[in-house]
């Protein structure tokens, strides 16, 4: 029986790309079946230029390609947390 609730997890990430996969997995491992995870990422150009490894521009683990209907990504440049959450 399908669960009657649809849940969306909106996760802003700011230069913390190393934790994103843990975050995605924590949602994937939930029992409930009808969730979405919408990952909103904020980029700062200077970080991209100086420390690319700290700014994830592609979701780790290929989740976005494997289950595109459930894992979505939106990149906002220097937008601030309220803006990216509202985008979600």
């Amino acid at each position, binding site marked *: 029986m399908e*669960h*009657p*609730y649809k*849940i969306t997890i909106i996760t802003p990430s*700011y*230069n*913390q790309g190393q*934790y994103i996969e843990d975050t995605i997995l*924590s*949602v994937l*491992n*939930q*029992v*409930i079946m009808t*969730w979405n995870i919408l990952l909103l990422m904020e980029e700062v150009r200077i970080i991209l230029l100086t420390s690319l490894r700290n700014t994830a521009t592609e979701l780790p683990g290929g989740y976005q390609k494997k289950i595109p209907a459930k894992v979505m990504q939106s990149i906002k440049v220097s937008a*601030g*947390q*309220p*803006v990216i*959450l*509202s985008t979600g």
Partner: protein
Amino acid sequence: MPGALTAVAGYFHQHPDAVMVHGRIEYFGETSTYYSQNISKKELATRYVSHICMPQPACFYRKKLLDEQGLLDESLHFSMDTDLFIRAGLHYHIVQVEDVLARFRLHAASKSVSSFNKKFLQDNAVIFSKVLATIGAAKEIEKMKQLGLYTEPGSLYNRPVRQFNSAAMLFIFAAPLIYPA
């Protein structure tokens, strides 16, 4: 937190009139792990419209809150969640549960860890000023002005149907500032 979403869906099913469910949170970092504690349910309705009294990552809300009360206030860099949750407290039933519903990683770059309390206070004073103006609490607005905390709001929240104890609200908001721990 494993099972959290199922638990949340269950609570919403039990409380069809509730727009928000909030629980406890596990904080973890490099050196320690600890859990938030829920505050007493007594006066919760007053606290919901005075300050943020629950850990934000363990808050789950229905889309109805955004549809009816609007999206986040993007002018608030630090307390946009407080602003949204206060709108929930003004208009809807909120359910507090004992479940640990989220984990929160503490690290030096986290806004909650690295930012000055003063910046949160500035946002919170703007929000609380707007609440008082919305419910027409003239006495408390005057006291906020005397404390140097009042900011004339550019807009108001939707006026709630419910009545609130504005004197108690002011005490909850201002006491930690006047009598810091």
